[in-house]
């Protein structure tokens, strides 16, 4: 049967070959992306957990003959008083309050920190731990021959303690609490400042601004600003918020003494500046995507411009605006350079208490830790990256849930 839809076999084969080739090309592009992502996550996970070898300055089990967790509070206090100088004790009491009034957990932490002073002799990556167990055992055996009171334990560097402890100079005692709180404070300021300004600017440009030279220049500049390197915003923030407006950003205007401009407020405002162009552009896109027919319908019913914007344009643009905001926040959360310029410090271990506090932030902490010589800092840097990722993802999912609920409404 000679069907009219049959192509000659040779043409068909060539066409199929071409189809397969391009399909392959596109598939491998996707594959490369996936591999890169997997490599990134594996590297981080590899560093974030593994076996560690610890030596105590004072053997923790020899202190009372029993594990620390079984000791009563008075016993712990006694240990502290026995092993520390009076000056040291006074400093502790000044920072934490009278020893008698502290709860058991704090006391244990103090004992570990001040008396036991565990140091990590050696840490292994997760891959080593899992696949080279025999070699590690041998090495540990050799070490144990030199130093008898060796502790070997499997340690996830990302643990509850890591989240709740603040900065410390010893990696095993360092935590990210201060940094996480700093990041959240900054992001909160950023959103509070950038979201209304960004959406407002987008509404003005889309709904009110007429088509003229000035507005075109403004639009072009906003588009270009979105591509300016973040360090430039850092310099800007340093010049304006930290220096020029230091009166305001240090809180001096509000009667707060002994501070300077290097505060959370400065950082938040700088970040707001940084994401503002992205936010405006995204919000503009979202507003532009609201069908013109909807606006016309509203105007046709005798609605004013503002009623139209408030009742129809904004509700319909909001899901898109939120998507843009998610992207902008992700960017702000991961930025390091401008924060360094406006004065983030990695040596802060006091939690931020308000917008006029000094601060550190997660990316700063990560940057700082990866730059340290001790290998253990790289472990906690990996753990901190995981924290950063989780914070990012949870902020995003809140926004996504919000967006989905908004866009479902009405349809």
């Amino acid at each position, binding site marked *: 049967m000679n069907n009219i839809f049959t192509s000659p076999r040779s043409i068909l084969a060539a066409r199929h070959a071409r189809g397969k080739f391009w399909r392959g090309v596109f598939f491998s592009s996707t594959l490369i992306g996936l591999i890169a992502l997997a490599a990134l996550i594996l590297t981080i996970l590899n560093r974030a957990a593994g076996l560690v070898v610890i030596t105590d300055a004072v053997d923790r089990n020899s202190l009372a003959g029993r594990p620390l967790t079984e000791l009563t509070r008075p016993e712990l206090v006694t240990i502290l008083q026995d092993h520390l100088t009076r000056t040291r004790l006074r400093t502790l009491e000044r920072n934490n309050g009278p020893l008698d009034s502290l709860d058991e957990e704090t006391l244990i932490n103090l004992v570990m920190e001040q008396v036991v002073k565990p140091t990590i002799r050696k840490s292994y990556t997760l891959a080593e731990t899992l696949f080279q167990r025999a070699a590690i055992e041998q090495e540990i055996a050799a070490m144990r021959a030199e130093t008898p009171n060796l502790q070997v334990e499997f340690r996830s560097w990302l643990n509850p303690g890591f989240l709740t402890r603040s900065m410390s100079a010893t990696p095993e005692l360092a935590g990210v609490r201060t940094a996480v709180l700093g990041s959240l404070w900054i992001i909160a300021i950023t959103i509070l400042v950038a979201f209304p300004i960004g959406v407002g600017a987008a509404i003005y440009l889309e709904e009110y601004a*007429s*088509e003229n030279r000035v507005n075109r220049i403004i639009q072009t500049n906003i588009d270009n600003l979105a591509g300016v390197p973040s360090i430039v915003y850092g310099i800007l923030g340093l010049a304006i918020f930290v220096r020029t407006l230091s009166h305001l950003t240090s809180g001096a205007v509000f009667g707060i003494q002994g501070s300077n401009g290097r505060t959370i407020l400065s950082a938040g405002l700088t970040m707001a500046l940084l994401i503002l162009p992205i936010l405006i552009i995204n919000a503009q896109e979202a507003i532009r995507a609201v*069908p013109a*027919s*909807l*606006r*016309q*319908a*509203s*105007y*046709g*019913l*005798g*609605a*004013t411009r503002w*009623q139209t914007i408030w*009742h*129809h344009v904004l509700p*319909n643009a909001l899901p898109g605006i939120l998507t843009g905001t998610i992207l902008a926040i992700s960017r702000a959360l991961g930025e390091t350079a401008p924060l360094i310029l406006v004065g983030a410090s990695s040596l802060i271990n006091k939690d931020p208490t308000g917008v006029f506090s000094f601060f550190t932030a997660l990316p700063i902490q990560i940057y700082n830790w990866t730059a340290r010589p001790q290998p253990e800092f790289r472990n906690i840097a990996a753990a901190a990256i995981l924290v950063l990722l989780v914070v990012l993802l949870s902020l995003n999912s809140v926004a996504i849930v919000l967006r989905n609920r908004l866009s479902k409404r*009405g*349809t």
Partner: protein
Amino acid sequence: MTHETNNHYAIETRGVNLYYGNFRAVKDVDLQIVPQKITAIIGPSGCGKSTVLRSFNRMNDFVPSFRMEGEILFHGQNIYAEDVDPVMVRQRIGMVFQKPNPFPKSIYENVAWGARINGYKGNLDELVEQTLRDAALWDEVKDNLKKSGLSLSGGQQQRLCIARALAVKPEIILMDEPCSALDPIATLKIEELMRELSRQYTIIIVTHNMQQAARASDYTAFFTMDDDRAGLMVEYGETHQIFTNPRDQRTEDYITGRFG
């Protein structure tokens, strides 16, 4: 039709010229719309018929380069006068668009919204029911008022848009090719509805569909383009006259399908 009795007409235009920038889109339109009748505006694409329609409730104001000369009188008052609030004009002269464009809200809200923003003080539930009845949609949606307006079929959506316009209590309803996105049955339903509504309202409809103009209107205005691409009104008269015995050769050519 003379210029003297201006209150007699629903809308009267005097020497109207409409511009987009330097381009004159419509020139020298003198048109008198008879109240409580259906007036159809027909003509080839680009003849400015939609532009004319949109100038009747100042929807063209949103086109930045739009400019108009002449007068458009509503109750003897020029709606383009300095002290006229275009928002008020649009409350009195409603509009239904080419594509059904209900708000992405519930059916109830679609109808109630316009009344609410215009400060309607009465019972909204009653208004919604009455308006939906007037738009011949009540029986189809009365059990689903909470459902989204977008869940309706195209023809129902367009009737919802008509109901939405009615809820603001306009005197005139402008319809810009209201059936061009609808199937023939839905189209006929809208035409029947227009006939019903013309007892209370003045309806002006722009349509590409000559049969629709012939079927559904009382008066027909034929627009065409001049050599300079400016639209102009060639002939205006009772629909039966325009469609059986047009006076102008250009109308004849267009109506018999021998245009261009």
